[in-house]
């Protein structure tokens, strides 16, 4: 019991720290990548000075994220003359908390056996015995459903913020955010149902484990090879759900100042911004888990590697765990880079185009993809039976 509490406590602290760090680093990546893409130098001013020396640590401007955070913490928390102060105060949390909570069901590694992992530490292996834990904050079999449930709550934050700000720009942003997020959430749901049909489960650990196999003897059974069309639809809809260019109409600065969070300042505004960056990481983590084999490399399992042809390479538990955690975050960072690349490459839609795109283009495509997948799964299962 106590062991379970300790392990899950460590997982929770790890998840929160990693998400905060990734969110912070992504604010820098966003600037630096934009600068590289437009042939500029980018963020390079903020630095840390080693005390009592003239040595300045600039590190390619990596400290700009910290400087931003500090600025937001120290700024005046200015509040508009809102008619509902409570709604105004809780709105940023409605936007921030569900985004963070989604990570609870995403597996960032395979099976952890603390007794073996800390085998070199006197007494630890005895205390843990042969207990094993899935590297996931909340190992629930309804994993994917929880992602959808929490995704639905985040919409409320944007709408509450816009409504309670007592500003027409904010209200317009909130209306836009509400319509957009509801529309694209539907597309995301329908694209993932195809994967659920194939894997026959909504448990994310089980989905990752099934991707460890191979197709036709050599292709890794990753979701992207099984459902390539769904992967593209998911990425497009997720970018829209995150309200980033080309779908950033709810906060389009040339039309609505900053949309639903125009009237927010200091750390409350920071929470909205931070939620957006953490959301990028969450989308990348979900895409990694559903389509890119999760925390595993091709042909990799919790025991080591199982190569095509039946060759087995057994690896020590410590190495497997470290490799899985590293592989997961590398995949997540690569996906984040791709999402930021899209953000800096495309121009913004018009609002009517944005909704038409969801309802008249993506939704029918998602339905066609689902119908074809259902027929294919039914036919393959029929042949198998």
């Amino acid at each position, binding site marked *: 019991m106590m062991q379970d509490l300790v392990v899950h406590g460590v997982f929770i602290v790890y998840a929160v720290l990693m998400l905060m760090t990734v969110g912070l680093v992504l604010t820098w990546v966003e600037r630096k990548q934009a600068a590289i893409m437009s042939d500029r130098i980018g963020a390079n001013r903020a630095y840390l000075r080693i005390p009592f020396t003239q040595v300045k640590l600039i590190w390619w401007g990596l400290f700009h994220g910290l400087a931003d955070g500090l600025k937001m913490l120290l700024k005046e928390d200015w509040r508009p003359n809102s*008619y*509902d102060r*409570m*709604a105004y105060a*809780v709105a940023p949390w409605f936007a921030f908390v569900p985004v963070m909570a989604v990570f609870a069901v995403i597996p960032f590694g395979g099976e952890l056996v603390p007794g073996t992992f800390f085998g070199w530490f006197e007494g630890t292996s005895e205390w843990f015995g042969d207990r094993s834990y899935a590297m996931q904050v909340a190992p*629930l*079999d*309804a994993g994917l*459903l*929880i992602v*959808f*449930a*929490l*995704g*639905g*709550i985040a*919409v*409320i934050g944007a*709408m*509450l913020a*816009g*409504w*309670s700000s007592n500003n027409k720009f904010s*209200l317009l942003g*909130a*209306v836009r955010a*509400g319509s957009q997020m*509801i529309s694209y959430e539907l597309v995301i749901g329908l694209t993932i149902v195809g994967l659920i049909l194939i894997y026959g*489960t*909504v*448990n994310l650990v089980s989905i990752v484990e099934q991707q460890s196999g191979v197709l036709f003897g050599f292709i890794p059974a990753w979701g992207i090879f099984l459902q390539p069309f769904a992967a593209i639809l998911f990425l497009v809809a997720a970018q829209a759900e995150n309200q980033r260019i080309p779908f950033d109409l709810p906060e389009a600065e040339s039309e609505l100042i900053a949309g639903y969070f125009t009237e927010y300042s200091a750390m409350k505004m920071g929470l909205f911004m931070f939620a957006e960056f953490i959301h990028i990481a969450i989308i990348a983590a979900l895409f990694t888990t559903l389509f890119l084999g999760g925390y595993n490399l091709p042909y990799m399992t919790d025991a080591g590697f199982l190569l095509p042809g039946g060759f087995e390479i057994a690896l020590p538990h410590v190495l497997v765990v470290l490799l899985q955690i590293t592989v997961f975050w590398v995949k997540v960072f690569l996906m984040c880079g791709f999402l930021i690349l899209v953000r800096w490459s495309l121009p913004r839609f018009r609002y009517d185009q944005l909704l038409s795109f969801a309802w008249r283009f993506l939704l029918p495509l998602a339905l066609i993809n689902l119908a074809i997948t259902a027929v294919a799964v039914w036919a393959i299962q029929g042949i198998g039976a």
Partner: protein
Amino acid sequence: MTIETVFLMVFALGSLTGAVAMFFLRHPMRVALALIGTMVSLAAIYAQLGMHVIAVFQVLVYVGAVMVFMIYAIMLLDVRDRSFTERFSPLLVAGLAGLLLLLGVLIDGLLRGQPFPAVDVPPDAFSVSTFAIVFMEQFWVYFALTAVLLLVAEIAASAVIDIRRRGQDVAAVRAERGDDHG
């Protein structure tokens, strides 16, 4: 008292507080927030009891879908409406009488009621797969029927809006032409 019981009591209190607040708050947005509080607390109670699927659907359907649409609608109401700021509704007496009646029935039920017998539930009774199989075998007809009825209602609502809009357009064109009298 175990930690599970403490959490159960906290969430039960949260759900009751939200429910009571819904009676007493005047502004629709606050009532909606109180309702969200109740729904989330109920979901937490279900999760605490090991029924994760029911908890997820509670949040997914009621908070993620129903309440999102309610808030969307409330957001577009006129905030200067006097009924939001008046302390009491004209139906105060009727409301109080209803509340007293409800409380009476509840207290009577509690005093007369017997404790619930212990139910032997298999450990995987509320897993996703068990739930899905039972749902698809026993309830899918009702579910599909409800979906069809909802679709009919949606089409009817959009048709009514369309007819009204067309009526307004015709009236606007007439007013512009100045042939209202004819």
